[in-house]
């Protein structure tokens, strides 16, 4: 037993801010002080509040230190660990009440509305130690399944829970498993989709980094349910920490006999291998992913046949997302009814979102389905920084769409998001404020899909490119009103005729911005103006003669010499030469330069 536990976040966010060095310094100091028998220092997965990293929690006091630096380690050890005096200056200010007492973390705004199921072990256990996972009831669900339940009972339990695929499409997990179980065949496979490629999404990454054993355990349960003895985790090579921790976890599970032959002394055998993705977004599509595991170029193929009938190596296969798997052991242990009690009627349970963009608390949150966008953005996320006005939230990455400010009270679940022209997606949630141009956002996502289209089918390969060019015309101010209608027509054409999910959803960002922000498109086309002041070709910087004192500061800083004028006389910007870099506006001390 330890009298105190120091948990240091080892997620990607905090690691990139030196948390490894902090961890090492702590271990050294604790050892030097001879406290290593009574104080336990551990590295954990993501706590979620990435904006305030590196994060450290000291228990049993529950002191939540944020933005810790390596230099702070001595003070924390000297004051808190040795003398029992909490270092208040480093505390996350939300956790301290008016009287200076520490509030429970779950009472802070960021955590209050969250409900952690898939993330339950992230920020609690050391992901590189199987023993810690076991201490928190790890592998108990696998044991229960193998010794007490039949494969059909497992599938029934999952079906009853109402769990739907967390990768974005929301297909009922139990039904998928049932299809694979019913497919005839000696050899079947279980695959895990960890090829998380949406810009701004890092849910799966954090789960693999913080609780890899949960995914392994769930895949073994799935293997038992459908009758498979081999699984593959397809994970992006761009996630080095996730790959490393997953490899360690698989190795440890094998050592303990929790993967391999005759697990728990039963007839069931199951093993797992990792396959690394080479960075193609399309490999997150299920058929392309399987083609890639087989060793071919990652391209999708038409469905049917569905993977449950004919998947990896032509055998019946199930493919689920990391977050879907992370829910499975909990459903087995706590029961389908417990899981179904959370969320809305058609979307049970919780969903993890990666909050990013113009928001205070960038990070990872898990909320029950049915929570409104307002609660996520204002209560949990803390709103837009610098008092800017919230304009829209983008969910579902390049496949999703925008949720405008007037729909902010929509309860989030699969069906509601589709009804308003977006989609759940894997869970990236990018917040935009008044400074974001919606045409520019649509262009950004389309540029991404043009780049990532595999090229196999024409509607996607050529269609997205043409659509992108039309968007460029809009942002350049050369488009006509007919172009907008043409764009919409092309969007529908691409959606209906593309081979796989990538093409079928690629026009969504354009369609949803056209639907909710058509006035912005029209402003670009008709008035040749970008209301948010983002599209450079439509921008004009001007000097207000009344305010200009003729200090020459702008002229001296202009990189292209576009500003002329005599000392103590108003200056002028030559629009032909101006490259709209905005330096003059930044430098002017009199607010004499305006853009529009």
């Amino acid at each position, binding site marked *: *037993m*330890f009298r105190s536990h120091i948990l240091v976040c080892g997620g990607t966010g905090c690691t990139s801010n030196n948390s490894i060095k902090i961890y090492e310094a702590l271990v050294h100091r604790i050892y030097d002080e001879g406290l290593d028998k009574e104080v336990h220092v551990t590295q954990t997965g993501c706590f979620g509040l990435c904006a305030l990293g590196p994060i450290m929690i000291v*228990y049993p006091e529950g002191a939540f230190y944020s933005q810790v630096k390596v230099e702070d380690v001595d003070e924390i050890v000297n004051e808190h660990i040795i*003398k029992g005096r909490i270092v208040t200056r480093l505390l996350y200010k939300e956790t301290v009440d008016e009287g200076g007492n520490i509030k429970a973390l779950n009472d802070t705004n960021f955590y209050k509305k969250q409900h952690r199921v898939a993330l339950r072990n992230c920020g609690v256990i050391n992901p590189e130690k199987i023993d810690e996972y*076991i201490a928190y*009831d790890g592998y108990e669900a696998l044991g229960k399944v193998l010794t007490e339940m039949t494969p059909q009972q497992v599938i029934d339990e999952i079906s009853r829970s109402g769990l739907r695929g967390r990768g974005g499409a929301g297909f009922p997990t139990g039904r998928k498993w049932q299809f694979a179980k019913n497919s005839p065949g000696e050899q079947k496979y279980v695959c895990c989709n960890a090829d998380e490629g949406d810009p701004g999404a890092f849910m799966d990454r954090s789960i693999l980094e913080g609780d890899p054993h949960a995914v392994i355990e769930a895949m073994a349960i799935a293997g038992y349910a459908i009758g498979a003895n081999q699984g593959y985790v397809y994970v992006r090579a761009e996630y080095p920490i996730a790959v490393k921790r997953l490899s360690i976890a698989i190795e440890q599970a094998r050592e303990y*006999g929790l993967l391999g032959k005759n697990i*728990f*002394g039963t007839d069931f055998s199951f093993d797992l291998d990792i396959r690394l993705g080479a960075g193609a977004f399309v490999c997150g599509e299920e058929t392309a992913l399987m083609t890639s595991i087989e060793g071919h170029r990652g391209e999708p193929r038409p469905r049917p046949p569905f993977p449950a009938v004919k998947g990896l190596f032509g055998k019946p296969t199930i493919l689920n997302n990391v977050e879907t798997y992370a829910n499975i052991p909990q459903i087995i242990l706590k029961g389908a009814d417990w899981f179904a009690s959370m969320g809305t009627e058609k979307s049970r349970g919780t969903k993890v979102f990666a909050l990013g963009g113009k928001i205070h608390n960038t990070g990872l949150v898990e909320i029950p389905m049915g929570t409104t966008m307002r609660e996520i953005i204002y209560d949990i996320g803390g709103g837009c920084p610098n008092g800017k006005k919230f304009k829209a939230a983008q969910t579902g990455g390049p496949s999703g769409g925008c949720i405008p400010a007037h729909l902010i009270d929509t309860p989030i679940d699969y069906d509601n998001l589709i009804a308003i022209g977006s989609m759940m997606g894997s869970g990236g949630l990018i917040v935009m404020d008044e400074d974001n141009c919606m045409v520019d956002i649509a262009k950004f996502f389309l540029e991404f899909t043009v780049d990532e289209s595999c090229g196999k089918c024409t509607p996607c390969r050529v269609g997205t490119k043409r659509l992108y060019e039309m968007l460029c015309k809009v942002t350049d101010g050369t488009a006509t009103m007919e172009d907008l209608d043409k764009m919409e027509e092309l969007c529908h054409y691409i959606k209906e005729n593309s081979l796989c999910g990538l093409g079928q959803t690629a026009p969504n960002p354009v369609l949803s911005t056209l639907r909710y922000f058509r006035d912005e498109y029209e402003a670009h086309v008709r008035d040749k103006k970008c209301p948010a002041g983002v599209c450079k070709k439509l921008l004009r910087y001007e000097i207000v003669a009344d305010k200009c004192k003729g200090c020459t500061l702008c002229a001296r800083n202009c990189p292209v010499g576009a500003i002329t004028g005599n000392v103590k006389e108003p200056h002028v910007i030559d629009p032909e030469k101006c490259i709209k870099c905005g330096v003059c506006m930044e430098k002017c001390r009199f607010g004499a330069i305006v853009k529009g």
Partner: protein
Amino acid sequence: MKSLEELRALRDKMKSQTDNRSVAGKDETVIKVGMATCGIAAGARPVLDALLDEADKRQLHNVSISQTGCIGLCRLEPIVEVFKDGQKYTYILMTPEKARKVIVDHVVNGNVCSEYLIGENS
């Protein structure tokens, strides 16, 4: 690992490694050892070690043992405070042996070790 029993045995063993990794719940017994300079000088560390060791041996998971700062009665250190059933008990002039007895008699069996209590000795 060949059976579910083995897994559960390992889990119970590991539970004590992760005890204290949360803020103490309302039904938990909280034990605090005064460990400012005065307490440490008077020998609080061996007392703390004894408490942890004894709780470990007996697989007590419903106990939170931690340190605190100066309690204010430096001449009576090492001081151990036990918060149990809504009551606070202050044990003074503790030694590792006395600490083990407090765990066994008071925390496990519910018999307060009144001979070490501050009230009995002042």
